[in-house]
């Protein structure tokens, strides 16, 4: 995996995936939602890590805080193609459907959304 396209962040993420981790890339500014996600994740599993450019008040080893550019690198590669099925991106891109639409329309709650995202993890 030694090529010019592989940035430090991408290399680090891919190595973690090769060692059995799954990664949630949290690409929203809402820190409250991030806190909820982390609290639920801590109860559920140790094999998942959240990558984010925002910090959380929840302590834990499951959050990997990186720079916005670092996060963008990984997201950019993921949007070129699906290079792994071990990543979930939580974002508010509006040119495709997203699970957060269900929360906005009160079909599911925030907690149910988090449970759904984590349901196939671990």
């Amino acid at each position: 995996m030694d090529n010019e396209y592989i940035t430090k962040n991408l290399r680090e993420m891919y190595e973690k995936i090769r060692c059995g981790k799954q990664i949630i890339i949290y690409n929203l500014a809402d820190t409250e939602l991030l806190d909820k996600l982390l609290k639920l994740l801590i109860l559920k599993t140790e094999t998942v890590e959240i990558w984010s450019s925002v910090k959380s008040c929840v302590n834990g080893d499951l959050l990997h805080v990186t720079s916005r550019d670092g996060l963008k690198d990984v997201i950019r590669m993921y949007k070129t193609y699906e290079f792994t099925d071990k990543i979930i991106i939580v974002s508010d891109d509006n040119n495709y459907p997203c699970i957060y639409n269900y929360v906005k329309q009160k079909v599911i709650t925030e907690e149910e959304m988090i449970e759904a995202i984590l349901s196939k993890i671990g």
Partner: protein
Amino acid sequence: MEKRQYDEMVESLEGLMTEMDLSKKKIFLFGHCGASLELIDLLESKGLKTKGILDNSEAKQNEVYKEARVYYPVAINDVVGDNPKENSIVLITSRFYASMLSQLRRIGYEGEVRKLIDYNTYADYSLSEETINRMTMREQAGERLTRDLEKKYPNHFRVFFPFNALGDIYFAMSYWYAFAEKRGIEKVVFCAPSKVLSDVVHMFGDYPVEVYEQKILDSMIQAAIYTEDENSFIAHQDRPYVVNLSKALYIKKIPLEQIYCCGVYGLPKDTIATKPNASRLVYKDIDNIPEGKAVIFSPYAKSVTALDSKVWESAVSYYNGIGYKCYTNVVGDEKPLVGTESISPSLLELKSVVEKAGTFIGIRSGLCDVIREAKAKKIALYPDYNYCDTKWKAIEMYWINQFDYNLLVTEEIKWETL
């Protein structure tokens, strides 16, 4: 499953059968879903029995289809017994082949594992320079095609239908008007992978539709994702990989129509769906259909497990017995049911045919959505299977309120009572 994928599955299986004698192996499938059930049928047609279906879902355990029982994957070594390399094989039709293979190896399964369908043009689980270059070029090709589309349709919002599924497009169009109003979209061009889907679009209005070969469409969709193009939208509930709507189904039952209304388009629950309103065509031989005294049967669906032929035989026998003229809606080389005549109206003509006949009986498929507003007695028949890898039955997900009957086919149907 889509015909293209089904054909690929057939070809892959036949190739495998020239490599090894599958009759000497215990055959397992991984993932209990419609595609797996279709594979069991295909194996059966070749004289092969499926021993089991591996699935991680608790809800699916011990379900049985044609003597193939659902097991947790971890049970495979016990079920196979000695010499798994010689005595067994796992066949995978799911797009999660890589994860499934990885799980099997982690639990110590040493037998052969083969993928029969290469679903996912968006995925390549490698970060090699060659892969990155190839995928980057694909994305760039998609951008060029999008620019060409923009030149042809300046100031048009672009909507992509990534997958060839009638019912999904019907729902996508039903809620399109409300979404367009919300976003202030005036002009739109729809991009689809087949001409048949453009007929569904035209049921709702005279919109421009561009039809692309699947791989080309996939590259344009990839470009839309990569560039975060604000003038485009991917209108599907579980394609491609960035759409995570389907995960909600692991914790809550959300019918397909609501998936499109609230999940795909982000519209309120009480949004009223637009009904097809464009003038449709009248079938050319409509005068030959006895008014109110005929039945249109629709027994075939590419994405649904077939029903036992006895279901159709009993229906045809009943309706012939009471003096109804019976037709089978057929496409391509599909054969009419015994005791019926073929009829092949286009999608836009089908409503006229159903209304003239007076009765429609079909396996639940996208075609049922196309005629859901037809003024006739309409009966949808559901095979007993789960929606994808969820715990919800297909009938719960696809129930049609506008149909007179939605029947789960688990026992003989008393047609005289309907």
